[in-house]
């Protein structure tokens, strides 16, 4: 076993009322890592976090923390702290009392607690808030207090359950940077839960994509984005063109009746596959220079780029480009071989791209 593994989930399965929620999850978390569990609601990510936190016992499987089995340990005996969804501050206690809650239980001295409160408030940029009540704080401020309350206990792992879910977009973005800064200053492991793929890509060292109680892919943000393992991951992480194709031979795939060179090998000959092409990887060129020809059917200005639909050989291609092409113009479609991602057809329905997710 690797030495820097801090949490190891082994064969975890859970079902509620006979309905499986987690199917045989195996996952290890390294020390000092920012790991994100990403997936649509109901994918089992919160359940996984509750198992790590000790609020739920798995039906089968073990939770190993620093080499010790903690599966049966109640949450109050575990060396990790959680930042809950919707903050979960104690409404009848002041900010200082909220932060001191865990320290008082550990019977720390008054001076120690006072110093810690000051340090924690400084860390989350809310100095001087000691005597305020939670209700008088904005959502973002309450979230910071929830983080401060957790980290004064010096946990080895901080669990964060969609902590930014209730904040507005601007606030969410600034809190993302704040969290990365905190993580680096504290030097502890963050296990982060979100359904927001952008959040996951921005902050994580490692992303675990989950769907329907199964882990779909584990990897760095770049891996997950550029080399999605299946159609679900490709669809969930950003927008994608997912097209049925046939792998004619190594490094050559047929899509929509045209032959596209690619870089993937080892799929065999004439095998049906899913082909993923990111909208920003589709180049619109002169009609005769493209691999296939199409017509622009819609055009939207999105700020950073234009979003266009191009109808070509019966498929509506989603294209992101900084260059504007008017509706009705005939264009050629060209894709760099390196940007074509070939995937096996899904074996089980669990791996299928869910159509209801944007």
């Amino acid at each position: 076993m690797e030495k820097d593994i801090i949490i190891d989930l082994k064969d975890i399965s859970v079902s509620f009322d006979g309905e499986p929620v987690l199917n045989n999850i195996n996952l290890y978390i390294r020390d000092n890592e920012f790991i994100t569990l990403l997936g649509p609601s109901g994918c089992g990510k919160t359940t996984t976090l509750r198992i790590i936190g000790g609020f739920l016992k798995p039906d089968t499987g073990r939770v190993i923390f620093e080499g010790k089995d903690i599966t049966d340990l109640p949450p109050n005996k575990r060396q990790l702290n959680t930042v809950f969804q919707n903050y979960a501050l104690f409404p009848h206690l002041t900010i200082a009392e909220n932060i001191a809650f865990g320290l008082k239980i550990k019977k720390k001295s008054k001076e120690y607690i006072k110093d810690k409160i000051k340090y924690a408030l400084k860390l989350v940029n809310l100095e001087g808030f000691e005597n305020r009540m939670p209700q008088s704080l904005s959502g973002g401020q309450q979230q910071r207090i929830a983080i401060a309350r957790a980290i004064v206990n010096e946990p080895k792992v901080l669990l964060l359950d969609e902590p930014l879910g209730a904040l507005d977009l601007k606030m969410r973005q600034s809190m993302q940077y704040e969290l990365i800064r905190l993580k680096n200053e504290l030097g502890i492991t963050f296990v982060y839960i979100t359904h927001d793929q952008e959040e996951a890509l921005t902050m994580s060292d490692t992303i675990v994509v989950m769907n329907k109680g199964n882990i779909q892919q584990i990897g760095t943000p770049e891996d997950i984005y550029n080399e999605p393992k299946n159609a679900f991951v490709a669809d969930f992480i950003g927008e994608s063109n997912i097209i049925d194709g046939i792998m004619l031979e190594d490094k050559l795939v047929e899509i929509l009746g045209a032959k596209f060179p690619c870089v993937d090998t080892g799929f065999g000959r004439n095998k049906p596959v899913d082909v993923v092409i990111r909208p920003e990887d589709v180049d619109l060129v002169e009609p005769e220079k493209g691999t296939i020809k199409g017509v622009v059917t819609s055009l939207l200005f999105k700020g950073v780029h234009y979003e266009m639909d191009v109808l070509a050989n019966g498929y509506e291609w989603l294209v992101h480009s900084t260059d504007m092409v008017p509706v009705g113009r005939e264009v050629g479609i060209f894709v760099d071989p390196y940007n074509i991602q070939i995937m096996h057809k899904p074996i089980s329905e669990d791996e299928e791209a869910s159509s209801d997710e944007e």
Partner: protein
Amino acid sequence: MVKKLFSFIQKFYVAIIFLILYSPVIVLMVLSFNDSKSRVIWGGFTLKWYSRMFNSSIIVETFIVTVTLALLSAAIAVVLGTAACVGIEAMRRRNKQIVLGATNIPLLNADIVTGISLMLFFSRFLNAGFPTLLIAHITFELPYVILSIMPRMRQINTNAYNAALDLGATPLYAFFKIILPEIFPGIITGFIMALTMSLDDFTISYFTKGPGVSTLPTMIYSELRKGVKPEMYALSTLMFLAVLILLVIVNLKGSPMLSKPFANAKNGGKKHAQTMRYRR
């Protein structure tokens, strides 16, 4: 002009309602200060019925029994009710509804049915007396206590309790530090409601008290059978005021779920508490 008239009619209507609702009580209060024994002749102002009342050993004894019973039963009902709420809140949704419905049955049940069934039950196991009275009172108070704590319980963010555990608290410590302060207003409301229910209950007490013991309502009833004594007017007046004060306290605390309709119609209080359940 029309507006003014309309607003006058509105006020007049409300005034009539209150007059009809409370005039019997006002008559009773006035008579308790009447120097004549007659129910129709005003013989001048006096406090002699009050002093006689306080000098009567039966009345004072019964008063002590009633107040002890009310405080003790309300205290026990509040403890049991709080425990019940914790348990109900932890249940799955369907079980929760079933149990909440079951706890509300005593509210809908006619007092006389509750009274007789308790009497039959006790006669099999216990001798009627103060203990049976106490158990009976706790029984009918419990639903009111649960009804006033439950909304508070529901407002608590379940994660707040989990957060306390997460920060190292034992379940018991988390309950006393996090849950209890949040539901405390509901507990107080429940306690005061239980007190008022206990103080003015007649039917159930009558069937479960046994021969040696009396509460103020049952004593007034048996005294009135012997003949009208103005001391009873005085006693009733004090009881009315006591309950009124308790209800005002509940209302000022502003528990919107129960106190309002309850205070508006004292006599129909139980029924109102029931309708509130459906309005929720």
